[in-house]
């Protein structure tokens, strides 16, 4: 069963009317239930312009609060125009749609509309969030999460489960309080710093690499000679092998699943959590 909720339509009239009356920014609110709240649902958010904040709560449905005016201020690329004499500025509704199907909720925004989404979701909701231009923040969610952004930053606070995150130009800061055993994780960026705090007792194989930056940790990392590390050998007729593998590969607390942290032009910090 598919259920579609178009907050852009449902709330736009309300929002425009309210703004016209009060002249103040307002927000669109919508609550959507999962079709099977007993099982952890999946929340997919794809935004072009706009920030996404997801907080895990002890609740069964998902609350979406969209503040398009706030997003316009955060992401504004041009100076706000002065209202001509006798005229007032109206808030343009952000417009976003939510679709629920087989316990999977998809959120998308209209093109050319900046939108600030604040989402309250059940703490075990699986997340697949991506933005082109806008920060992503996740707080107190315990699940599998896949987070991607091009120009934004990624901030994960007090999260559990497993994380696969990539930011092209932004920093990634993650405080992981609980990990799913045997689940691999990856944090990668082209130009950003990676600052990841892991539980002190975490069992993992760390694969750390920064091409132009530095790598720091307060974990006791036992280095493993990786299969292809530091080998330079003659190969039949094809000349000398050139080794460019500069990854640090080591275990913490006896080893476990692979956690990859890779950045081209940033620093890497792997911190021991309290």
């Amino acid at each position, binding site marked *: 069963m598919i259920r579609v909720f178009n907050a852009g339509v449902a709330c736009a009239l309300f929002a425009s009317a309210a703004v016209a009356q009060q002249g103040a920014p307002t927000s669109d609110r919508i609550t959507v239930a999962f079709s099977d709240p007993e099982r952890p649902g999946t929340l997919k958010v794809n935004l072009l312009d706009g920030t996404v904040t997801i907080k895990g709560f002890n609740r069964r449905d998902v609350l979406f609060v969209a503040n398009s005016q706030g997003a316009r201020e955060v992401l504004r690329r041009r100076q706000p125009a002065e209202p001509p004499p006798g005229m007032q500025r109206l808030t343009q509704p952000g417009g976003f749609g939510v679709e629920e199907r087989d316990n999977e909720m998809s959120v998308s925004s209209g093109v050319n509309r900046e939108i600030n989404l604040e989402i309250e979701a059940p703490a075990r909701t699986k997340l697949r969030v991506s933005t082109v231009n806008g920060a992503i923040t996740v707080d107190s969610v315990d699940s599998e999460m896949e987070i991607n952004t091009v120009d934004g930053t990624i901030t994960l606070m007090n999260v559990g489960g497993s994380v696969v*995150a990539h930011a092209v130009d932004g920093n990634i800061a993650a405080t992981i309080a609980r990990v799913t055993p045997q689940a*691999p994780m*990856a944090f990668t960026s082209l130009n950003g710093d990676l600052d990841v705090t892991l539980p002190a007792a975490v069992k993992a194989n760390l694969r750390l690499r920064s091409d132009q930056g530095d790598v720091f940790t307060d974990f006791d990392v036992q280095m493993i000679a990786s299969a292809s590390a530091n080998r330079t050998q003659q190969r039949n007729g094809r000349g000398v092998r050139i080794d460019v593998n500069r990854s640090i590969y080591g275990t913490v607390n006896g080893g476990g699943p692979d956690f990859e942290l890779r950045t081209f032009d940033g620093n890497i910090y792997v911190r021991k959590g309290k």
Partner: protein
Amino acid sequence: MENDKLSRLLPDEVDRREVEGLDATWRMLGDIETPGPDSDRMRARLDAVLDAIEHAAPPTSPRWFGRRHIEAGRFSPLQGLATAAILLVGIAIGRFVVPNTIGSANSSSEIATMRSEMRELREMVSLSLMQQQSASDRLKGVTWTGQLDRPSGEVIAALLDALMHDPNVNVRLATIDALERFESREDVRRAAIAAVDRQMSPLVQIALIDFLVKTNERQSAPMLRRLAQDPQVNGAVRSRAAWGLQQLG
């Protein structure tokens, strides 16, 4: 004319407009384009399966055993008796001549069978993980291929498929690491060259350039030269390509 036929078939109490409306809806539904299969991926998998069948060991059933006669329905009972007798004599000789080695031979062949079954199972698990929706599962599948003893062509095809098509950057990066053990294969190096142009992610492009330099793949030189001179390409990728060219000499 079709409508006339329709009205003749319809009982009187049925509203004709409603029928026409339904008919129009059906027609519109018929016009909806059926999404085509993901042909690249399907083709890659089909090729891998065909490859595996072609390279599999020939069937072990003994042809000289009169199989053709059995198939043709000309199997003589005498032949069967003779075969059974020879089998019994063989077993008896085996028991009396080498009574002590039978047990160990059996168990070692059982162990070999179990090992090969385990290998197949591991391979199957890796392949199925690589098809999952969750990026974490796909990462696990890619990493697990590193623990496979002698991975089949299907595993390599799945890794190349992930390198080309996986939507997650981190899975594609892990795939390049996993493909390192197959660097001696021509098809893997060719795929790595082709993948550089198709990648949207600069980080994956840089990892691929490193892979090609590491394998000393001189055929990548024209592609690297083009990347190094293309102002549209990300600056870090451009300078990595220039560095790669220098390394390959």
